[in-house]
């Protein structure tokens, strides 16, 4: 049985919860069981935000991530909070703006310019979540590219299709 427990953490306003919703949609398209949830503070922007999604071949009991198989951190605080004490099989992805201490020794670790890609290559900071989704799917292979596009289109505002599809492919291109 395959079960992915994915956690995306960062700052409120980065759209990471939507990111986990898109990944959940991808799971649904692949016929998997999914459970997506989130936690956030009272502020709509700027506080710490965390989105989670479990994608499994079997029915899901507990809906929160307990043994993450994938963690992404897009802010220093979220890196410090969520990227330690993980199972060695867990894949850790962080933005290249994160200052990772020299003694951080998690093996399955990748650093990518996610925020910079959204800002410079796509030209819109708000697409940072979709850039992330593109990169994550390339790493985790949740579904094929076409299905992922469908998933994205179901969950983004009208009029931003082109922008978000560009974000998706730029994100995927980050993972070599």
């Amino acid at each position, binding site marked *: 049985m395959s079960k992915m427990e994915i956690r995306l953490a960062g700052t409120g306003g980065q759209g990471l919860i939507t990111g986990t919703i898109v990944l959940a949609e991808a799971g*649904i398209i692949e016929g998997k*069981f999914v*459970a997506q949830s989130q*936690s956030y503070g009272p502020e709509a922007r700027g506080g710490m935000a965390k989105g989670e999604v479990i994608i499994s071949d079997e029915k899901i009991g507990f809906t929160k991530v*307990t043994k993450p198989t994938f963690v992404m951190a897009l802010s220093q605080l979220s890196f410090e909070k969520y990227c330690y004490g993980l199972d060695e099989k867990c894949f850790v992805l962080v933005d290249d703006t994160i200052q990772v201490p020299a003694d951080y020794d998690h093996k399955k670790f990748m650093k990518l310019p996610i925020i910079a890609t959204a800002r410079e290559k796509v030209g819109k900071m708000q697409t940072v979540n979709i850039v992330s989704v593109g990169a994550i799917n390339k790493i985790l292979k949740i579904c094929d590219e076409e299905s992922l596009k469908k998933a994205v289109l179901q969950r983004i505002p009208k009029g931003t299709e082109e922008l978000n599809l560009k974000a998706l492919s730029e994100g995927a291109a980050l993972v070599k």
Partner: protein
Amino acid sequence: MGKVKLMQGNEACVEGALYAGCRFYAGYPITPSTEIAEGCAVRLPQVGGHFIQMEDEIASCAAAIGASAAGVKSMTATSGPGFSLKQENLGYACLTEIPFVLVDVPRAGPSTGLPTSPSQGDVMQAKWGTHGDHPMIAIAPSTVEECFKLCVRCFNLSEKYRTPVIFLMDEIVGHLREGIEIPEEGELEIVNRAIPEDPAHAKKPYATKEGSTVPVMAPFGAGERYNITGLIHADDGFPTNSTEIADKQVRRLLAKIDDNLDDILSWEETSMDDAEVCVVCFGGTARSVQSAVETLRAEGVKVGMFRPITVWPFPAKKMREIAGKVKKIIVAEHNDGQMLLEVQRVTGLYDKIGFVGKVNGTVITPDEIVKAVKEG
């Protein structure tokens, strides 16, 4: 792509309500139930229904009851602080026998508490929040699919017994997104309140037929000009100070529930056949318990789960039956022991019942249940 849709519990509640025939919603924004109001604002006019954001929680409850008196199935939703405010008119609907569905998505803590954190602290308020002796049905979902299907059931029970029904959700299922297969039209049973056919009904709108405890109900505007009052009233719908009638009326209201337990009660049993330990839980907590039961069973521990889906009335007989079979009962809930009180009361096993509870706004993990079961 199949028919499975990714949906949030709160959204599924809205779709379930529409499926059940709900065509009116009145509400006030409150976390973590706001998506229900937002969903109704979008969806109701699309099906010819009406949405209104009222000035406060009290008014929302009143408006929902008013709409139902006018013959339109209605709903309102809230969270703990708003649930407290809705209690006034909830009691009015009990006594006047006006059906509607009140959704409560509790938050942690008393007062404003922890607005975005899960809790199940409204169990006792659901039953006893409004004053006086009154009937109450409360149903608790534990999956997004149940947010849809059980919402339909809430409407059905409400219409059938002419009584308000509380859909006791929680943040765990309310904000959870899962795949859900939306039932086709006609797939689920839809109950509509019985409407009077006999013109003489107008004279005694609250009279019941032989063998029934539920009077049939005319909508306002259909020609039966009758009176509705929150005062104790006779069969003719008018206030009375008769102690005899007061007794008869309150007892009939309670009998609507007590005489129909077989129809109203529902529960889920998981791995209970040979269970020596039973974990009792409801709503979103069941997700933690399910995972814990799986883990423990894999280790050979004979543990099962009993989940009242109908929380009120509490399935007392079934609980006693289970208590007679298992060696140990553990109650798990996101409060300081509210359903626990009921389990203790109906089994008479006070100190022998284990308890896992949380009041800090975090979710009970499967590991915490596993530990409690192992420690016995």
